[in-house]
């Protein structure tokens, strides 16, 4: 019996090409060919009317081929970009144009698009475009948006794009009646995904085939394909979108189409040449998306044990200048805030607000880090108020293992009920306490205090709805060589899909792992797909691939049973060979089964001779049996009723410097439950990366906008993304595996989890460290820098 690969630390197949410099990222496509390059003129103003654009000097630049402004766009291209996820409560949704029409609403908004022989020349040409602006007063930050003295969009009163409310029970009444109440005001600043590879698109119009080929660094190739076809007036069948290797996504590449994803294909068709746009780093900061900026007001009522009786949350979400991705981020905050707890009475209201800043779309965690921060700060505040251990307060509020499935009574981001499928939160808490040394910590803290050192511990719990629908699909094709070609439509940004999906196929099909080749994000291979977001790839495509492999296997066994004159149930497949159980001499390999599956008229090699009409089958029957198709293939789709809910807990021990207020991480521990693990090495890698992004978001990263809407830190020099020197030296990880009942593999998503509790866990640990021999204060604003911590000390001394 072949060893099952599910659950094994299988080394990644994609690494061979990446390690040799043979990866193929979008900027590597069409290199050294007859290629043109694009550059974009972007608004220098956060808010301005465009009075006039003069491009007369541009075409004088040698090597410039064309320039587009809004005036040159016609038909669907001249309409606003799509609002991808409409919602009835998004009463004032607005999206930008591919090129600005009359007005710009953030620094970085695209105004003109130049195509030239190379990027240097294209940028020279951009510099020659003269735009006359009439600057308008900008709205920067949530306070300014709420004050609404100035409007981002004239026709959006109060700068309010949406107001949404959900509730279960009667939170205000329950709080009023509760023996204890607390109020908290909590803020989180903006950060961004900042993958090392920015956005990029290449397009080639093939006049011979009348087709467009687009390579783009996206998290949804089918999404880009559909919108390119609509905007360019092409039939869907004329557009292929290929997602090559992608240098990180973390959410920002799920939004589509970016203006350039339409303008590059437009230019390629107009000029009859291959055109490429590669975003530079500054452009990524000012024209891709941000996330996280929110202000929260919380009122909570609880009993003597810290048990929640009522929770009333109001928050304000800064969605920037436009709302292409709808309300997904604040809806996730509003629902996932509940974490592993059952507050009994809950009301949440949010306003999604316009500002003259870069728009907001999901960044790993997608509203959960803010929700987790709000809930866990509340738990810490309750514990502090009651003088109880923080884990005790959490314990009394946990949903218990026998209460699943647990319906929170709310509607989740996918429009389905927020119903948790499985989990074991008390077991996770025991594990994290043991892993971080929770019970031993007070002694350690006292010991350190005696040496004049301030150490503190924090803990935070989360639940993450993963694997949302609507569906993903997979196609498995066993070729006559015995090699297995697998395609799924969602895309890959470093998660090792080629490895983990091959593990699933090898397990189900009984072929060797090395014979499986997985392709993702190529609409030519799988035109039906949704995309990679919401920690859904393993759950959705993993399940679809498993099901498709199962179908292929059924066909293998049917054909092999005929050939071996045995019953299908008596067969087994090991290392790519089908044999009768207990009689290994009677066998046939997968390649030969594939040959037999496709009756041929023409032989072209030794193997195919065996499949010609004179060699195969019963002359009394049609060569392809009724209800069958030629070829050895399996195709299937997975479409779950609702999301599956992963969970976990993080704990951190930090030391704060009594003089400088520097914050040092001494220990970081993670307990993670994503159901059955396909490849623990890859899951742990995802956690590591999430934790590092979480450290960035909690201690370093922010978008420093000035009052005029200029982003002051739009470079890696000034935006403090963690180096190795900022991340914990070692992350202790323990897994709990509570399988999901919703999919055939019992898996849950793992991609985002690492980043969710960071703001919460660091705020708690810093606050705890500061308590040592000082007046207590509460950390209510994240991220927190040493100077901000120092200021807090001054304020409370």
């Amino acid at each position, binding site marked *: 019996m072949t060893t099952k690969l599910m659950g094994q630390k299988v080394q990644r197949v994609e690494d061979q090409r990446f390690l040799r*410099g043979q990866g193929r990222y979008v900027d590597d496509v069409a290199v050294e060919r007859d290629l043109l390059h694009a550059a974009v003129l972007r608004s220098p103003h956060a808010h301005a009317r465009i009075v006039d654009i003069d491009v007369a000097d541009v075409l004088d630049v040698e090597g410039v081929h064309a320039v587009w402004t809004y005036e040159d766009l016609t038909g669907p291209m001249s309409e606003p970009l799509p609002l991808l996820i409409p919602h009835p409560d998004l009463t004032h949704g607005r999206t930008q144009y591919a090129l600005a029409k009359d007005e710009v609403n953030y620094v970085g908004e695209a105004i003109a698009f130049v195509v030239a022989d190379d990027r240097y020349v294209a940028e020279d040409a951009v510099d020659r475009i003269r735009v006359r602006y009439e600057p308008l007063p900008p709205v920067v930050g949530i306070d300014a948006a709420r004050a609404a003295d100035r409007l981002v969009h004239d026709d959006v009163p109060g700068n309010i794009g949406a107001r949404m409310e959900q509730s279960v029970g009667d939170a205000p009444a329950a709080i009023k009646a509760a023996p204890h109440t607390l109020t908290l005001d909590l803020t989180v600043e903006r950060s961004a995904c900042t993958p090392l590879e920015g956005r990029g698109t290449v397009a080639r119009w093939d006049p011979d085939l009348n087709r467009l080929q687009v390579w783009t660094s996206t998290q949804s190739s089918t999404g880009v394909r559909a919108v390119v076809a609509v905007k360019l007036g092409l039939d869907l069948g004329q557009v292929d979108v290929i997602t090559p290797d992608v*240098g990180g996504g973390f959410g920002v590449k799920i939004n589509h189409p970016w203006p350039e994803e339409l303008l590059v294909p437009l230019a390629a068709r107009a000029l009859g040449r291959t055109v490429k746009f590669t975003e530079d780093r500054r452009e990524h900061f000012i024209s891709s998306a941000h996330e996280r900026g929110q202000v929260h007001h919380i009122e909570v009522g609880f009993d003597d044990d810290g048990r929640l009786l009522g929770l009333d949350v109001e928050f304000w979400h800064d969605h920037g200048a436009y709302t292409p991705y709808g309300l997904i981020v604040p809806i996730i905050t509003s629902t996932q805030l509940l974490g592993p707890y059952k507050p009994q009475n809950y009301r949440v209201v949010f306003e999604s607000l316009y500002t003259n800043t870069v728009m907001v779309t999901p960044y790993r965690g997608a509203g959960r880090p803010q929700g987790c921060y709000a809930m866990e700060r509340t738990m810490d505040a309750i514990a502090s108020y009651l003088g109880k251990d923080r884990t005790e307060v959490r314990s009394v509020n946990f949903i218990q293992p026998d209460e699943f499935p647990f319906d929170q009574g709310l509607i989740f981001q996918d429009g389905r009920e927020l119903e948790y499928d499985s989990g074991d939160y008390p077991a996770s808490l025991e594990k994290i306490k043991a892993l971080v040394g929770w019970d031993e910590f007070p002694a350690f803290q006292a010991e350190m205090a005696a040496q004049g050192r301030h150490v503190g511990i924090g803990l935070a719990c989360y639940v993450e709805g993963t694997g949302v629908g609507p569906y993903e699909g997979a196609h498995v094709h066993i070729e006559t060589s015995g090699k297995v070609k697998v395609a799924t439509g969602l895309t890959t940004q470093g998660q090792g899909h080629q490895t983990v999906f091959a593990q699933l196929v090898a397990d189900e099909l009984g072929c060797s792992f090395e014979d499986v080749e997985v392709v993702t994000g190529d609409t030519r291979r799988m035109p039906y797909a949704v995309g990679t977001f919401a920690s859904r790839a393993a759950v959705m495509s993993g399940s679809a691939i498993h099901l498709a492999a199962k179908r292929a296997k059924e066909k293998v066994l049917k054909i092999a049973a005929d050939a071996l004159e045995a019953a299908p149930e008596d067969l087994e497949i090991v290392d790519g060979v089908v044999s009768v159980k207990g009689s290994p001499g009677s066998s046939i390999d997968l390649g030969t089964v594939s040959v037999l599956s496709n009756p041929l008229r023409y032989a072209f090699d030794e193997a195919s001779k065996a499949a010609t009409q004179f060699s195969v089958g019963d002359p009394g029957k049609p060569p392809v049996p009724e209800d069958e198709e030629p070829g050895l293939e399996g195709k299937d789709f997975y479409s779950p009723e609702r999301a599956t809910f992963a969970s976990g807990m993080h704990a951190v021990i930090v030391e704060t410097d009594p003089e400088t207020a520097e914050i040092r991480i001494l220990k970081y521990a993670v307990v993670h439950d994503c159901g059955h693990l396909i490849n623990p090495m890859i899951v742990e890698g995802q956690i*590591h990366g999430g934790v590092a*992004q979480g450290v960035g978001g909690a201690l370093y990263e922010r978008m420093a906008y000035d009052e005029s809407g200029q982003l002051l830190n739009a*470079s890696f*020099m000034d935006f403090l993304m963690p180096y190795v020197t900022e991340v914990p030296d070692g992350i202790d990880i323990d897994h709990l595996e509570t399988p999901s009942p919703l999919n055939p593999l019992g898996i849950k998503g793992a991609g985002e989890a690492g980043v969710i509790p960071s703001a919460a866990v660091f705020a708690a640990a810093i606050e705890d460290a500061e308590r040592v021999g000082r007046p207590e204060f509460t950390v209510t604003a994240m991220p927190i820098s040493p100077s901000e911590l120092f200021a807090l000390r001054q304020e409370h001394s």
Partner: protein
Amino acid sequence: MSEELHDVRLTVNGATHEIRVPARRLLSDALRHDLGLTGTHVGCEHGVCGACTILVDGAPMRSCLMFAVSAAGHELTTVEGLADPDGSLGPVQQAFLECHGLQCGFCTPGFLTTITAGLRDNPTPTHEEARDMIAGNLCRCTGYQNIVKAVERAAEIGAERA
């Protein structure tokens, strides 16, 4: 307005290439777009992320901060030149594979070249020195945990192969 072009001879991974480029052509662009050596990646174009790091006469340099014309007469090594002569993965590459030191792979070439030079200078780094060795390169995927392990493993492989 025609840009003045310069003939430049670049020696990359032992092979010599003749290109004609403007003075402002970045070395990173010349490697990628003129020579087709796309293994060197550009992550920031202001010398901070380290993805474009190559070896210039054995020393790690950010190819986005050099002009192609100034690389003439120097021996350049890119990620494409790090495999062993028989085509198998070099020690640093092998260590990254074993330790899962990469995810999206975009920053990886810069880490591989940096560590190659680092281990040449210090073949037996302590844990702290292993962390220091990569402290100038950004990675957004791995949280660096497995990259540090890969530095330590690469040192072991280097010793085994020596």
